[in-house]
């Protein structure tokens, strides 16, 4: 802040003070609001920690690798839910990453700009569709499809393996994973596309100059450059998928068991909280549910952090010269 002229010290000082007071107030107001964001987040973590205290105290680390979920006898273990959460998200990734990255490549490298923008717009609108609507469609459109066609076919083709055993419920881990895959598309596509666009033109042009086909230039010269960004998008989508509640709850079958077969019903952390929270009559039950929430929160933080880190590295690498 440049000091005013010393010519009329008294008046200048008052003027400065007024001006600075205005600034101080603005600074203070905005600071208070910003600090409140930090405060509320801290309270959130604190509450989660405190309210899961009883459960943490009773079960300790065993919580993470026990499979019993027995409200009658107050025995709670998180393993089936952690398993369900992870398996549905990973399966969802397996289904959506090839499609998503393929689409991103098309949109960033191969499509004419107008088409690319239009399609990107549509795909990003997909991100705005609420989870419960995906669930609605899943129950009435996807589940009958799975039950009547897809699952019986899978059983007849692969039923000899432990992964495709069981009656075709329609509901189950596979169906939930498919819904998650559809919900992850927009994130994978838009972030990967951004990463690909950031790759300097010289890379592609150099490959083409050396005689590569368009595909070879893309796959061998451009994509590796954007590798970190694409992986980052995968991490971020994964983090989002882990926390998905409604769509998954409506089709996963609500069975807290670990099953090798992906056609079997399962249970995720978010689903069991949604189903049992308002009705947990025992205090230990409630505490166990909140501890599950804490576990989910921690997993999400780690994955989000990794994803952001990778993205940061990409942008730096992309623009670094």
């Amino acid at each position, binding site marked *: 802040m440049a000091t005013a002229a010393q010519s009329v010290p008294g008046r200048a000082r008052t003027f400065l003070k007024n001006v*600075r007071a*205005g*600034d101080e107030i*603005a*600074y203070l107001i*905005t*600071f208070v*609001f*910003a600090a*409140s*964001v930090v405060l*509320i*987040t801290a309270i*959130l973590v604190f*509450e989660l920690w405190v*309210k899961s205290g009883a459960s943490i105290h009773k079960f300790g680390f065993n919580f993470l690798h026990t499979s019993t979920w027995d409200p009658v006898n107050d025995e709670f273990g998180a393993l089936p839910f952690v398993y369900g959460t992870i398996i549905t998200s990973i399966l969802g990734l397996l289904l959506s990453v*090839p499609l*998503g990255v*393929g*689409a991103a*490549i*098309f*949109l960033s490298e*191969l*499509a004419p700009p107008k088409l690319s923008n239009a399609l990107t717009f*549509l*795909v990003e*609108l*997909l991100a*705005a*569709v*609420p*989870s*419960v*609507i*995906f669930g*609605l*469609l899943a*129950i*009435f459109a996807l589940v009958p499809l799975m039950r009547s066609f897809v699952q019986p076919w899978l059983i007849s083709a692969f039923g000899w393996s432990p992964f495709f055993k069981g009656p075709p419920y329609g509901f189950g881990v596979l169906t939930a994973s498919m819904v998650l895959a559809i919900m992850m*598309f927009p994130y994978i596509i838009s972030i990967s596309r951004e990463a690909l666009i950031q790759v300097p033109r010289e890379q592609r042009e150099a490959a083409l100059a050396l005689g590569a*086909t*368009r*595909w*070879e230039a893309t*796959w061998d010269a451009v994509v590796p450059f954007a590798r970190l960004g694409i992986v980052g998008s995968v991490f971020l989508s994964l*983090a989002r998928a*882990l*926390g998905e*509640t*409604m769509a998954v709850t*409506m089709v996963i079958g609500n069975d807290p068991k670990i099953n090798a077969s992906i056609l079997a019903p399962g249970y995720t952390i*978010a689903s069991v*909280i949604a189903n049992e*929270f*308002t009705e947990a009559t025992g205090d230990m039950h409630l505490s166990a549910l909140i501890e599950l*929430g*804490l576990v989910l*929160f921690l997993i999400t*933080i780690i994955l989000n952090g990794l994803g952001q880190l990778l993205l940061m590295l990409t942008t730096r690498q992309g623009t670094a010269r």
Partner: protein
Amino acid sequence: MLILWRKTVNGVMLTLTGICAFVTASALFLILGYLVWNGGKSLDWNFFTKLPLSPGELGGGMANAIIGSAKIVALAALIGVPVGFLSGVYIAEFSGKAMANVIRYTADLLNGVPSIVIGIFAWTLLVVPMHHFSAWAGGFALSLMVIPVTLRATEQFLGQVPLALREGALALGASKWRSVATVVIPAARTGIMTGIILGVARVSGETAPLLFTALNNQYWSKGFGEPTASLPVMIYTHAISPYEDWHRQAWAAGLVLLGLVLVANIAARMVLAKGAASQRG
């Protein structure tokens, strides 16, 4: 010969990626189409004006859910937007680097909290002490999801305001806060508005945080201190029920909800595109 192989691979892969793009884009059309088909059949005047009736009785509607959602989302916006906006102003204009990083990281953390966990938090903070499920709790929960989005949008677009503009204001003798309030923020206003609209549209479709905060209600809710019906929760309870009439209503509600969300999204993006164009031109 190698050239032929490479050319074939080229052609195949390009087509494949094109198929990928079209498949994912068409997913949106499929969803919309299904909803319009099933929901359109079920939308009638009753839906918008009547209260829900007990299962088996036809002619009910979701009037209270529509108003309830409006109340809860309005509350979320009223709490979340000022907090997010002013915090974004703080980071972008007033704070030092360290503080900015801390707040940015916290906002990202808050953004990553699964929506069901936000519901738990609002339950422990508001529902239990108040001994009431309420629209306050629901609105508060959703506001926690509005804050990070608004904060990021504000920070991002304020940062994009050219230095020349800022320096010009300061050179004319405006104080810092004056220049921010009267020059910088208006310059970034389109982008910030877009971010806010997108954020609010997103939370209007959230179900999980409302499950144990606003709960649900068959009747009109007086004020904000009572359990309040909302569209997303109604869709959920009706979809998993065995009643045909309730399924029908779930479709209709889904169509209405998706319609609102998409309209908000498209409008926001168009505003952003126009704003950006006019700034450049």
